[in-house]
């Protein structure tokens, strides 16, 4: 293999890039993220956390962001719709106390809002934990999978992972029939050893990560047979090309440096790959104005910036904060969560 030229890691540019978004300078081509602005915020905050920059955000600014996230919380004891909304875009009420139609939490934004609060060092004391878990319970389907919102949406492995993460963060698994969830995951293992979005669906590193992380978060990794375990490792290890891809014969993509890499970490197989050449692909997707993009020479976005940084952190590159892969956050944040859990007892 030829050696790649050394590419500089532009940490400072990435910090600036993520901060630009946090200050509301969102480019027009990302306007369709308006209804999921909390996810955008999560990618920026979580990226800054990997860059070890959270301490440099003034407390006042953190408080503002925390307040905004809490403003997205839906607490409703009539309908099982508690959780966090994607943004205020859908809200039309003029009087804050009035109940509003279609004000529903979404499982993915609930997950990302909880993590954002944790990263910003909030103690989650204003999170309506009981109602969220009660609503979560209503989202699990007969086959063990989860749908995203009470009025219906698709159901697949992504939302299984969100459900498992929410339960892990809130330290309450009473909203999930864990046996059914595990069954769903095991049924989704494909002929090639990887895991799809559901039974009979094509293996994909995103869904494979979600599945393995959910097993690990719920302490069920041992439910994989040794053969299943080895097959998963093999399929994932072979996803490494110049960087990681998400499916065989698909181009290498920055975000899989985390999805595939994180899954390999959970399965304790990351050490089997050569990590010296590995950062190069991710570094090549840096934008000259900061941020990372999906491929080389394309436009950066916060999602790929976050996963690029997370991927580099898994490679132990660039002095970044260490990841806690199964929850998709830094070890620092997880340690704080563990302390919160002891306080809740």
């Amino acid at each position, binding site marked *: *293999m030829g050696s790649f030229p050394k590419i500089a890691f532009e940490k400072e540019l990435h910090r600036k890039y993520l901060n630009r978004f946090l200050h509301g300078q969102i*480019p027009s*081509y990302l306007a*369709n993220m*308006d*209804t*999921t602005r909390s996810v955008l915020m999560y990618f920026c905050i979580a990226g800054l956390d990997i860059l070890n920059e959270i301490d440099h955000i003034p407390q006042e600014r953190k408080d503002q962001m925390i307040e905004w996230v809490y403003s997205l919380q839906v607490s409703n004891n009539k309908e099982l719709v508690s959780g966090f909304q994607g943004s205020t*875009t*859908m809200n*039309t009420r003029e009087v804050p106390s009035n109940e*509003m*139609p*279609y004000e*529903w939490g*979404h499982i993915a934004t609930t997950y990302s809002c909880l993590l954002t609060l944790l990263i910003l060092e909030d103690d989650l004391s204003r999170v309506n934990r009981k109602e969220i878990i009660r609503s979560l319970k209503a989202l699990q389907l007969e086959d063990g999978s989860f749908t*995203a*919102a009470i*009025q*219906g*949406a*698709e159901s697949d492995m992504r939302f299984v992972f969100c459900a498992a993460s929410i339960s892990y963060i809130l330290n309450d698994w009473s909203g999930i029939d864990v046996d059914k969830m595990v069954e769903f995951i095991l049924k989704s293992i*494909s*002929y*090639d*050893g990887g895991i799809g*979005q559901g039974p*009979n*669906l*094509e*293996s*994909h590193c995103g869904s494979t990560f979600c599945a393995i992380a959910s097993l690990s978060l719920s302490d069920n990794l041992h439910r994989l047979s040794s053969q299943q375990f080895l097959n998963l490792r093999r*399929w994932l*290890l*072979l996803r*490494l090309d110049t960087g990681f891809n998400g*499916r*065989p*014969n*698909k181009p290498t993509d920055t975000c899989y440096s985390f999805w595939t890499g994180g899954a390999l970490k959970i399965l304790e*197989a990351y*050490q*089997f*790959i*050569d990590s010296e*050449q*590995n950062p190069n692909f991710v570094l090549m997707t840096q934008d000259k104005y900061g941020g990372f993009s999906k491929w080389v020479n394309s*436009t950066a976005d916060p999602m790929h910036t976050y996963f690029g940084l997370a991927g580099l952190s898994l490679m132990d590159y660039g002095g970044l904060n260490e990841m806690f892969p199964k929850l998709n956050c830094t070890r620092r944040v997880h340690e704080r969560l563990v302390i919160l859990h002891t306080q809740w007892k």
Partner: protein
Amino acid sequence: MHGRLKVKTTEEQKAEKQKEQQKKLQLYRAGMKKILSTRASDLYDPESFGISTQLLCVNPDIYTLWNYRKEVLLIEKEESSKDEIEGDNKLAAFLDKEISLTEQCLIANPKSYGSWHHRYWVLMLHPNPNWDKEFGLCTKYLTYDDRNFHCWDYRRLLINKIGITLPAEIKFSTDCLNNNFSNYSSWHYRSTLRQLDENCIEDELNLVQSAVFTDPADSSAWFYFRWVLSNPALSKEKRQELLDNLEQLQELDPDCKWVVLAKCWLTGSLVLSDSEFVDKRVQFYKELIELDPTRKGQYEHYLKIAEEKLANN
């Protein structure tokens, strides 16, 4: 987005822009308010419904709007059930327009989870769904993008509706693969159609073997190959024959890691007697360390196990 020149914004321009944005925001909020205000009254309001159509065409990821439309469609169904003569036709006409909307959204974004989900939901509500037409569209779309997993998933839902026979679908899968061996999604789809047993294992082996031997560097078919190899219905003689074939393939293509990997699978725990071939496997892993240095660590790990076994033999 690259190479765009930065223009300094004067305060005046800034203020003007802000005013413009405020105006847009007000229009948007008014639209949303109009839509959402109709929920409580249980009445279908064509104006709100129309606004939500426009919004979804711009952004099909607003799941709240899809759910709003579901409620409207359910009201329509309820209403149509009161009209015994014309009810079904009216409902069908209404839902056909909804199907067109999802089509528009999918043309704009073929990976919109919400649009795929809504389309199937609408067809399920339809008094007279044209599953055959849907199936035809699905087959056609797969010729444009044969890796779109949404479309493959959709196909799976449809085959249960149109009552297609398994042999017909297996033929479709064979055609797909003959057309393009290197489509991993087709191999996956095939794996969900086949129960490997002594009746079909030779056919499957022939199909996949011709794929991997045609272009050994292409990763697509190797996992299917491994899957066929792992089946106990495959005889020992056949496995030995395969090993010989792989040796020949390696002579033609000495740098291909997949060929050596397949030899490891065949002689390893998967298949042929483990201890008989352990000395060979030691050799294979050494070759792999050279051929595929990115995964060196893994091969060294297996090499160590094989060498320990050899020492104990």
